[in-house]
């Protein structure tokens, strides 16, 4: 089939599906129920995008079928969409089913909705059984106790389904289902299902049980956690599969909040230590990412002692980890420890670690330290670091890889703010100017933007004294790319610098460049004049800008003529 025709036809069908509500309105509620919905129930041959749009539309169709009294008519088409193999479509169908379940009366729930859930749960295809898992929690609260017992039974069956796909769906909905159950059933049913899923032979099922752990722990009273949840959690933290241990590390903060301070002290601290020392780098990196959050959420009374005795030694090891992603993850959070530990501990124990990471061979590690300086600044002031900071910044600024150079430029305004204007002028100004003439255009562009942000921070007067002269000086550079950079800088800085500086210092330079040999420079002059025009007063516009633009409008180069004419029209100088 001709590709264009196919795409067109999909687009047509997609557009018409999106207008489904219009069609339903035109048909009226009765014909929608008796003709349109049966048709939609059977046409599930379509492309994913069309089915997805259909699933979404049906979730909003209650009024179009005649209100809550008839909402159950929407169930057949959504039921067939819930068996489609494309996950996004199924998920959307389930979402819509959940939505309309709220509009079913308790009677309708039992008569129409729950049978649908039952049918999906005992369906032949894995896809219907996985969809069923997402529907239990929405119908449970409002049905009778006999029906509740049935629902609990179905869920139990799906948790031990033959296919991993279904068990995964059940595991991922375990927490949500537990939330709507009565506490007694949570203890009697959910816990055993949770333990079973957490020891499933498939790694992909066990790691979803870790997520469920957080929800379940939040529901149970403290005294039950030790017997009902902790054994499983301990097992997960030491699972043979690194992916399960990774999940534990990834969810550590949520787990910490869910189990409370006592269990954290006794169980989670040693578990966290083990994760920081795990043999698999992916796990160590995930744990390293959580160091700050974990420490912040420790109970206040012995927080410092726990960190100093148990966490800090592991952190020290990680600074010299063999894997760069681990070090990088640590670098992104380690500075946050200084606010927790206070000034003295920071100076004695943390500062050496910051400095070591500042000298790391991996640029990302160094960048992560530099981007988080504000926490340290609060606690001990940045002077302590500035000695090592400067060489680190310079090295990153001159890195052979342009993306590394780009990253440090992006931190420059932040650093400038933290280090203060004197430090900046003394040490960093030259760097910022050097970037303006970098070989790579992306760097020159970022450097220009950087200057604009600095002017916004330090003010027009500072700009006038320190950077404007240098920028304007580049107008005489033999390299035309640098001369153009002057113009781009002027474009970026004029508003922040204000009318005075723009008229007295920048405008003359721009006007002079209208005689440049290179056409690219000349047409950028036109563009610059258009950009800075609004900042100038009308006198300058008429007496100085207009003549130059008129001259450029008769230039031999086509592009120069074009941009000059455009500037004239935009500035209304004609």
């Amino acid at each position, binding site marked *: 089939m001709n590709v264009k025709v196919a795409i067109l036809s999909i687009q047509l069908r997609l557009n018409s599906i999106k207008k489904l509500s219009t*069609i339903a309105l035109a048909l009226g509620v009765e014909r929608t129920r008796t003709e349109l919905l049966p048709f939609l129930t059977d046409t599930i041959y379509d492309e994913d995008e069309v089915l997805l749009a259909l699933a979404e539309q049906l979730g909003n169709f209650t009024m179009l079928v005649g209100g809550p009294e008839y909402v159950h008519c929407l169930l057949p088409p959504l039921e067939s969409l819930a068996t489609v193999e494309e996950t996004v479509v199924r998920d959307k169908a389930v979402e819509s089913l959940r939505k309309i379940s709220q509009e079913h009366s308790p009677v309708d729930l039992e008569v129409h909705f729950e049978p649908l859930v039952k049918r999906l749960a005992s369906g032949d*295809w894995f896809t219907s059984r996985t969809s069923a898992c997402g529907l239990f929690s929405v119908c449970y609260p409002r049905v009778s106790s006999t029906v509740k017992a049935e629902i609990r039974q179905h869920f139990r069956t799906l948790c031990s389904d033959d296919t991993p796909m279904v068990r995964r769906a059940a595991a991922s909905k375990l927490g949500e289902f537990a939330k709507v159950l009565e506490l007694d059933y949570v203890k009697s049913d959910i816990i055993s299902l949770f333990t079973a899923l957490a020891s499933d032979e498939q*790694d992909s099922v066990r790691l979803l049980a870790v997520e469920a752990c957080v929800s379940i722990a939040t529901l149970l009273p403290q005294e039950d956690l030790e017997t009902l949840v902790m054994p499983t959690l301990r097992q997960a933290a030491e*699972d043979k599969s*690194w992916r399960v241990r990774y999940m534990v590390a990834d969810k550590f903060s949520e787990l910490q909040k869910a189990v409370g301070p006592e269990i954290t002290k006794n169980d989670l601290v040693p578990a966290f230590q083990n994760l920081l020392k795990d043999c698999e780098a992916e796990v160590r990196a995930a744990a390293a990412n959580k160091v700050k959050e974990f420490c912040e959420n420790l109970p206040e009374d012995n927080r410092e002692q726990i960190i100093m005795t148990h966490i800090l030694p592991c952190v020290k090891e990680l600074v010299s980890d063999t894997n760069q992603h681990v070090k990088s993850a640590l670098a992104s959070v380690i500075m946050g420890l200084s606010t927790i530990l206070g000034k003295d501990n920071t100076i004695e124990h943390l500062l050496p670690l910051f400095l070591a990471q500042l000298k790391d061979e991996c640029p990302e590690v160094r960048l992560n330290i530099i981007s988080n300086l504000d926490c340290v600044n609060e606690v001990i002031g940045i002077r302590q670091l500035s000695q090592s900071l400067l060489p680190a910044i310079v090295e990153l600024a001159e890195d052979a890889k342009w993306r590394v150079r780009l990253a440090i430029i992006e931190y420059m305004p932040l650093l400038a703010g933290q280090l203060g204007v004197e430090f900046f002028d003394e040490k960093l100004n030259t760097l910022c100017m050097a970037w303006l003439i970098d070989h790579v255009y992306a760097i020159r562009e970022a450097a220009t933007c950087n200057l604009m942000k600095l002017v916004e921070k330090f003010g027009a007067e500072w700009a006038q004294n320190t950077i404007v002269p240098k920028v304007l000086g580049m107008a005489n550079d033999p390299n035309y790319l640098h001369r153009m950079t002057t113009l781009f800088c002027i474009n970026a800085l004029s508003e922040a610098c204000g009318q005075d500086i723009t008229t007295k210092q920048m405008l003359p330079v721009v006007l002079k460049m209208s005689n440049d040999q290179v056409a690219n420079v000349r047409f950028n002059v036109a563009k610059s004049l258009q950009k800075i025009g609004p900042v100038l007063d009308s006198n300058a516009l008429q007496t100085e800008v207009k003549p130059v633009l008129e001259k450029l409008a008769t230039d031999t180069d086509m592009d120069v003529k074009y941009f000059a004419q455009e500037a004239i029209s935009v500035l209304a100088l004609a």
Partner: protein
Amino acid sequence: IMCGPVRDWCFSQVKGAIDDDVAEADIISTVEFNHTGELLATGDKGGRVVIFQQEIENKNLPQFRSEYNVYSTFQSHEPEFDYLKSLEIEEKINKIRWLPQKNAAQFLLSTNDKTIKLWKISERDKRPEGYNLKEEDGRYKDPNTITSLRVPVLIPMDLMVEASPRRVFANAHTYHINSISVNSDDETYLSADDLRINLWHLEITDRSFNIVDIKPANMEELTEVITAAEFHPHQCNTFVYSSSKGTLRLCDMRASALCDKHSKLFEEPEDPSNRSFFSEIISSISDVKFSHNGRYMMTRDYLSVKIWDLNMENRPVETYQVHEYLRSKLCSLYENDCIFDKFECCWNGNDSVVMTGSYNNFFRMFDRGQRRDVTLEASRENSKPMQVLKPRKVCAGGKRKKDEISVDSLDFNKKILHTAWHPQDNIIAVATTNNLYIFQDKVN
């Protein structure tokens, strides 16, 4: 499961062109039954996939249950050109693997040297009728004649089987893909080329994780390549890969993210009496398959089939000679390149019999329990319906008996590289160069 020992095999069907002039594109490059055996897929050098379906009405008639008819044909891969390296990328289908069925449609993965595709095969038996803007014949109506809004209805139509590409997994392999294997978790699969193995998620096409990388820092030090790889049938964390040096490495994905370190290495020490210039070449493993029960692995090297117990690394538990009479002919087989032929092997449904192909359109079966082996031939001469296949014998030297064929008369252009066994029944599919033969056990 009808997998009991078979005394006689008989011919059921042959698919493909009859003439001797074989079109290059029609050469069959892979054969695979799906998990129930109801569907049989073949891939060819022209990038096409043909799927045959077992005749449902015949399923309960024992002597006709191996009737397979064409269900769907589609072009899976097209030839491509790698502009960067100035190389053609062949459209030949290297492997097909079926996914377990998750709803009414069927899914399979097919791969050429560089790109893996997920195909959906679905049935359509209804079509809409009663459009508002079109007549039945497709002509557009005059809008002024339309006075009311119709909703189309669905009416039955002849069964149409459609194949549509659902995912394309591209750009992850520098070298030629030799294997794909679906994980028992139903959501991931691996693809292996000469030097690397990648792990994919079936729903994610823009990312794949490298789990094995045997490329040396200096390519001049390259001595060994990956020849095949497969996931364990039940253990989601275990996979095996074979090498050109005759080794098997079992890896555990739980232990670490990068599985360069194997957890078990299976290698048989070389028999010094058989050492020759060709020893290393013929030790190269061309195929590896786990048994259905997951306790054994089978490997195929040039001259033999070996069964390995997962718990014993230092030697195979069984070795079967496929065509030992070729050992003295290795020199000429090297010269005509036949020594590099990659034969595949397969297990029957209850792991009691293994099968592999040979030359002259012969194929061999080894019954592990009964300690019997047989050589059969797939040929047009033996293709009368239900004709029982007569066992064949090759005479290695000395006096040739009647009905035997001498080694020098074997046709080395007629090779059976690809065979498949129905997972639950005694039905086999054997591919000669461009024909697919289907045989079943003799029913009295």
